[in-house]
């Protein structure tokens, strides 16, 4: 008896107990390792995924809460062949050192840009405040998010 949910656009069934934290279902049952375990208590932001359009901590979301819903992980944002503008911007700005915090930050930033295509530097920082980075790449990350926002706006205007 599994739990059904839509992950990165595909219908999936996870064979796990309903109270299993979503992160283990994603990483171990579905093999989506991009969602990182950092604390298990929604205090670091490393495991953020989109549940419908909202960024949530996968370590702190039970599988039943995602049942029947759309889940988007970092793998669902883009791939090397079809990258999300945020992923391109992170590479262009070399906005990482160890890269362990990147997935969660990319997910939260994607949610931010969906709601606010032209955020200020301060707004980006405010939204990312729940995400920790230990390598000290914060300023590069903010630059990358602002760059992605610019490119996405330019793309929208051109379209």
């Amino acid at each position, binding site marked *: 008896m599994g739990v059904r949910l839509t992950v990165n656009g595909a219908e999936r069934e996870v064979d796990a107990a309903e109270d299993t934290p979503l992160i283990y279902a994603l990483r171990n049952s579905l093999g*989506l390792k991009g969602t990182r375990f950092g604390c*298990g208590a929604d205090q670091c932001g490393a495991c953020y995924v989109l549940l419908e359009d909202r960024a949530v901590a996968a370590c702190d979301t039970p599988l039943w809460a995602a049942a029947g819903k759309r889940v988007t992980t970092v793998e669902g944002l883009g791939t*090397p062949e079809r990258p999300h503008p945020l992923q391109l911007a992170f590479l262009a700005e070399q906005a990482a050192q*160890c890269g362990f915090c990147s997935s969660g930050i990319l997910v939260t930033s994607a949610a931010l840009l969906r709601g606010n295509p032209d955020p200020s530097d301060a707004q980006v920082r405010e939204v990312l405040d729940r995400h920790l980075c*230990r390598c000290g790449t914060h300023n590069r990350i903010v630059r990358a998010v602002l760059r992605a926002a610019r490119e996405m706006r330019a793309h929208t205007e051109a379209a």
Partner: protein
Amino acid sequence: MNLAYRLAAGQDSGAKRLPGSLHVNRRLSQWLRVRADGVVEVTSGKVEIGQGITTALAQIAAGELDVALARIRMVPASTPRSPDEAVTSGSLSIQESGTALRHACAEMRSIYLASAAASLGVEVDTLRIEDGEIIAASGARSSYWQLADDTLLDREASGDVAPKAATEPALAGRATPRLDLPDKIFGIPRFIQDLELPGMLHARVLRPASPFARLEKLDTSRTKQLPGVVDVVRDGNFAGVLAEREETAVKALARLALDVQWNETDALPDSATLPAWLKAQRAETKVVDERVADTPAAVSRRLRASYSRPYIAHASLSPSCALAQWNGNSLRVWTHSQGIYNLRTDLALAFALPPEHIIVEHVEGAGCYGHNGADDVAFDAALLARSANGRPVRVLWSRADELAWSPFGAAMAIELEADLDEAGSIVAWRHELWSNGHSSRPGRAKAPALLGAWHRENPSERLPAINPPLVSGGGADRNAVPPYDFPARCIVNHRLLDMPLRTSALRSLGAFANVFAVESFFDELARDGGEDPVGMRLRHLSDARARAVIEAVASRANWSGWQPQEGCGHGIGFARYKNMGAWCAVVAEVEAGREIRVRRLVVAVDVGRVVSPDGVANQIEGGAVQAASWTLKEAVRFDRRRVTSDSWEAYPILRFSEIPSVEVVILDRPEEPSTGAGEAAQGPVAAAIGNAVFDALGVRVRDLPITPEQILAQDSKG
């Protein structure tokens, strides 16, 4: 001890001196392999810990061999194949591994040119190389790939082939995007945490309730009954669970923690009076450095001050992780350790195995800033895997264990005293410090330095941390010797012989606190004499490269054009890392309101020849931000029994909205040897912030971290 020490100590003496760690890993085949399919495999003993070293080393190899960067395949380090370069630490990878690789590549190039000349029947000096194609003046062609032959490199380096001159256009010195980042940005499995082996079990460790707790009673029955639990293991004070699924392991551990009884002891110091405690402990005392003036100067002023730093946690974003698998009497371990051979040595001790029975493979982990839990968790995995009937076992620490059980950067107390003459020049300087040692790394002692080994039925001895010798940069005493031209100085180090809280190497070791103290005190002397802190530093410095970074940072920060504002201040800090590495000067600008806010950090750095400009900038920026976090927020909290800062709430670090702007000025010196960049900013940033806070508020905080509470406490002392 890092490799620099072994090299300096002349290990393997008798053999011809070869550059970098080529000296102790002399076979070219240890470093390089040419494949017929157009790839050069490069194996370094230095590992990726988030600092970008694999990219820098690949750049060096590509430049030296004249091949495109895309042809270089960096092979993960593993025993026994890869070069033994001891530990990836001390900002030494470019010096040790980069230098070795540069020379190994030069030899490979020369060997393949000779081979091409022979096969084409032309003179070597008529050949040139373009992306691995070897082309003769006559137009005849060969290539590394056509000539690929493992026997060509199956020999010792001769040391007779010079690498390219620094001025030759090569890839080095250009900004190259990190090779490992795309995987990490697209969420493609690459971290050790992502590694999944066939038949793998998930395990968790039950840590003692406190550092000296004894396990009195453990009832495993209820845990064992949980569906999916494979086994519950106990060995003395060490216990753990193995399960088919990760969520089951987590649940099983929570269950087990309810069925346990610990006997705890109050054995930790009083954190409210830490400096006094440090000074009262049993210690080994050493005069680190002493210089006596030729002619004693007349002393007109004498100043004295005491500084301290607390224990600081590594607080890596991921808890430590490892995998292990037994095959009879052979053990294989996957680890994000900084030193795979050192880990193998201690695993061999812990399991009474010959080292040849153990394979240790490196897999990238989250950011590493020194000796964290990576080695410990590898031991945990190996111990628990003994109950897995040959199946591989993955252990992931909890966040609480990561923050409370990884080794800490050692707390330090420092007393400084200076004599000044009539003209306001410093004529004598005394620096005395008290601290646990700054290294408990594996692979160096008679007992394994692995946490779990301390907790077994037959525990290994808890040896107190040591200090690397000053010749390789020192430990607690790192940067205690001031960089200034003082005619007399005396530096004394008291290494504590008891270690209630486990300490080991954290980014920059003692340099963080020593530079904070030295540079804060220097500021106090300047202010006391009514002199500009920048001018007074320059007046006491003859080292041209030291002067250059101070002048560069003062100029970029517009030091002399500073407009005083209510509640705002600026300050400077300077050090040459280890007194033999990178030169680094920092100006901090702060705003002191309800909180201390660092608005801006300007950093000038001289790392000699720059391999990767963006790599250097990224390391300096990151180091500066992390140092600002240590300076403003961080302290391991504990009561007399337990470490209490075991969550991100209890151990806060700087967040996005609190991060200063960071500007980095790199003084490139293509003719000078490269030094590391990773740790150069730590001490100068702390001092610059402390000095800026004084400039803003007129309050001198001498005990880190510089929190509003500390400022109030200092202010009320007057």
